[in-house]
């Protein structure tokens, strides 16, 4: 589990005159946040198991600018975006996969207006395709029979209409998928979006992540599944708030697949 991973960068691919199948856009959370790093590693294990020839940008990756844009700093967003587009186009990148719905939304929907058009996939969509193509196989495994409730990330679900991919992947675990009342298009935000992740919440009588975690815990799950590093943080904190971290795990869809059959 803890051995260093050797991951090739776009620069290395370019130097070798090779083209990867897909670029893994790790994202800032996936690169720097301790919890989210585990999601990045789990996803890499899946990519390796499926023998996907992928690259990362490494030091050349920079924030997509999403939090700056949502917080009203359009200048900073566009500085980031234009620089990233230059790097991506410089390598001739065609296809990107990311484990962060915010990066996903920005790369997919907002970069085209700035000269960067790519095929962009959320990692749950990518994993789902690998499973369908038979490039990885997961049937039951360590999470067989567990109660799992999936929290829809706003930027994947409501924002981009993708509700099925993460659920189709989870169904492979042979687990009992239980839906919260507020799910899919009616899913409740974890509280991190719109740059809230990086600031104190405004005054109120409850934290949004507590409201959401309460609903998730109400499903009596063994696992709360997430598809976004920020949702993951918010829900992990929420589960801790109710002192349930011993019984209920908050896991990314990629981690569940990677750990199900020890990929």
């Amino acid at each position, binding site marked *: 589990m*803890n051995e*260093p991973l*050797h*991951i090739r960068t776009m620069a290395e691919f370019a130097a070798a005159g090779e083209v990867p199948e897909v670029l893994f856009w*790790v994202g800032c959370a996936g*690169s*720097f946040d301790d919890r989210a*790093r585990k999601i*990045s*590693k789990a996803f*890499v294990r899946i990519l390796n198991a499926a023998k996907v020839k992928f690259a990362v940008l*490494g*030091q050349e*990756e*920079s*924030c997509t600018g999403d*939090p700056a844009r*949502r*917080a*009203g*700093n*359009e*200048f*900073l967003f*566009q*500085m*980031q975006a*234009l*620089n990233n587009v230059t790097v991506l186009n410089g390598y001739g990148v065609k296809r990107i996969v990311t484990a962060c719905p915010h990066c996903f*939304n920005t790369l997919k*929907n*907002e970069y085209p207006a*700035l000269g960067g058009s790519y095929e962009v996939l959320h990692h749950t969509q990518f994993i789902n395709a690998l499973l369908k193509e038979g490039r990885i196989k997961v049937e039951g495994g360590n999470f067989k029979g567990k109660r799992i409730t999936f929290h829809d990330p*706003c930027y994947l679900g*409501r*924002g*981009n*209409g993708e509700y099925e991919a993460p659920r189709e992947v989870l169904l492979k675990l042979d687990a009992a998928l239980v839906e919260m009342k507020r799910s899919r*298009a*009616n*899913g*409740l*935000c974890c509280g*991190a*979006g*719109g*740059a809230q992740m*990086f*600031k*104190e*919440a*405004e*005054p*109120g*009588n*409850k934290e*949004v992540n*507590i*409201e*959401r975690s309460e609903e998730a815990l109400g499903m009596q799950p063994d696992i709360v599944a997430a598809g976004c590093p920020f949702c993951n943080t918010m829900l992990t904190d929420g589960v801790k708030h109710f002192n349930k971290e011993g019984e209920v795990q908050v896991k990314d869809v990629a981690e569940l697949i990677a750990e199900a059959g020890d990929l």
Partner: protein
Amino acid sequence: MIAQVLFTALLLAGALLFARNFMRVRRNILLGRDVTINDRQGERWALMARVALGQSKMVVRPLAGILHIIVYAGFVIINIEVIEILIDGMFGTHRVLSFLGGFYDFLIGSFEWLALGVWVACVIFLVRRNIIKLKRFVMKELDGWPRTDANLILAAEIALMSAFLVMNAADLTLQQHGIEHYREAGSYPVSAWIAEQASFPAMVSGTLVLIERACWWFHIIGILAFLNYIVVSKHLHILLAFPNVWYSTLRPKTELVNMPRVTGEVRSMLDPSVQPPVVVAHTVAGVEMAERFGAKDVFDLSWKQLMDAYSCTECGRCTSVCPANLTGKLLSPRKIMMDTRDRLEEVGKVIDAKSKWEDDGKSLHVRITEEELWACTTCNACTEACPVNIDPVGIITDLRRYLVMEESRTRPALTGMFNNVENNGAPWAFGPDQRMKWTEQ
């Protein structure tokens, strides 16, 4: 004859007043920034058919949705009857369309059932607002006029439907009495019952004619008055829902529209050989206005965003699913829309009085506080919930853009995040040299 002249005069006056006020709303909407929305027209017509005409987002909440469809269908279909009322009123005829025979019976019968349905639905709506006091109908932003407005609309619809049914009850009784002018026509499933309960058959013809005429005049004057009330109330949604859905965004909900002028500025910053864009001034309401970064006032929002504000009927479905509002924060997406509309009305009154815009020293930010704006998670639950595809998140983002880019006002932690992104390329204080560390642990 006098009645016919009076009727025609009233009709003309009502229609002219409506046209004048409606053009005023149109002028106010066009105070917004120009945007072109005419792509993918086939999809837009289909969306309008589904969401506005077909009420698809209303029935997400089945009880309110079905009751609303009854009122909506009733309103539209019973207005076919108004065609007959108009002809009768202008030419002194009575039930001029009764030559349609069996079909006429069918129409009048359906109108009666619908009128009863509207009546019952409006009573239930009043109960939900005033007795059950559903949370979204008793929130602070509805205090005062908005609550009265809602109740007035429901009361008016109940009064109009009552007049329609009582008119029919008197008419039917007169038909049964064999009074000339009241020839036998139509089928009256609901008003027959009303006539019986009110002992109409026992009344003399003179009284019945008086009741029938009084209700007829009340009904048509009521409709004209209501038509004019619509334009100055939240009830405008019955007209604007259709164009508002047609022009609504077909983009993914979380996609923010690019600001091309910023792109120009940033390109010139990154490459000194690129000239910065020329700031274009627009003449709005007789005044030259420079383009701003983000929105300070209604002039900085697009006309579509202003149409959104006028299309809002304050149902509060947005606010009832807003994570910020649910957890006690100040933000209410409905209030954002109401504030935008109220500010636009305020601006419109200045323009009415002075025939051009004169700065009144106020702006949208006088009504919408920073605490509200910074509470939004941009989760788009509000846009998903809105039955007429209003987008409060776009307005919130434009107001934030103004605060940040024109006033340098933000939350302290966000300033830190901006600095990190600018200096390290990440929202946290980790540099690019640490980007690959996750692979080593």
